[in-house]
């Protein structure tokens, strides 16, 4: 039996960074094993992605050269819920290039990195929109909560200033 308990000041680690959240619901099994539910993982991952975008969006636009590491790209691809060739479609490159980027054999260009951040922001603001964009008609696109959308808009606005 898994008991759900609230835990305060929880550190969530992710390839795009780690965050400390006020409260998390942890599952504790009869054997004492601690787990997170998929819904809670999704919520925390969204918070990490928001924090990652806030830290990198402006920097990416202003820098003369900008790229993403293989592990960042891997984390983005996983967050968007796409495969290598779909990711290639989203940022305008071949699957073979995506494969090389993931193996650290090639770098993602600045324009593709910027597009990657835009795709992240789009998925954050409207969960499911990436799969919809790729033609998956079975997906229902949701709206993220208002506070998150406000923060995303603020991030974009301050970048343009």
């Amino acid at each position, binding site marked *: *039996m*898994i*008991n*759900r308990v609230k835990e305060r000041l929880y550190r969530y*680690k*992710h*390839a795009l960074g780690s965050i400390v959240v006020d409260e998390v619901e942890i*599952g504790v*099994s009869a054997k004492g*094993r*601690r*787990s*997170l*539910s*998929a*819904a809670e*993982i*999704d919520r*925390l*991952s969204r918070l990490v992605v928001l924090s990652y975008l806030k830290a990198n969006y402006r920097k990416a636009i202003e820098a003369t050269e900008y790229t993403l590491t293989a*592990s960042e790209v*891997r*984390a983005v*691809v*996983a*967050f968007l*819920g796409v*495969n*290598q060739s779909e990711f290639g479609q989203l940022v305008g490159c071949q699957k073979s290039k995506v*494969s090389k980027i*993931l*193996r650290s054999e090639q770098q993602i260009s600045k324009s593709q990195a910027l597009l990657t951040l835009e795709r992240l922001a789009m998925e954050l603001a409207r969960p499911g929109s990436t799969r919809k964009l790729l033609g998956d008609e079975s997906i229902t696109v949701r709206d993220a909560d208002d506070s998150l959308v406000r923060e995303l808009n603020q991030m974009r606005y301050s970048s343009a200033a």
Partner: protein
Amino acid sequence: MNLKEARRLFFKLRSENRIDVCEDHVIGGHPERGYSMDEVVSLVKGSGRLQDTTERRFVGDRFYWRTKDLQENAVRLVVEFDEDNAGQVILVISAGERT
């Protein structure tokens, strides 16, 4: 629980997003790959095959979920079924390489 029942339950639970991932999911697995928890969830949701475990140290209803990660590496997840107050759930114990 036999394999046929386990497969039916696995596909039903994952379609309902009833998945839990252990915090120490990489221990005994493949830590250098460093799957984050959301990657483990996407591995469970990907295509793969549920198989019986062969290791005697696994007591109870544990199964292997064999799938591939983004880079087409074979991955073996050890899963078991548990329940919380909302019903049954897939519990991912570890995510590592195929052995």
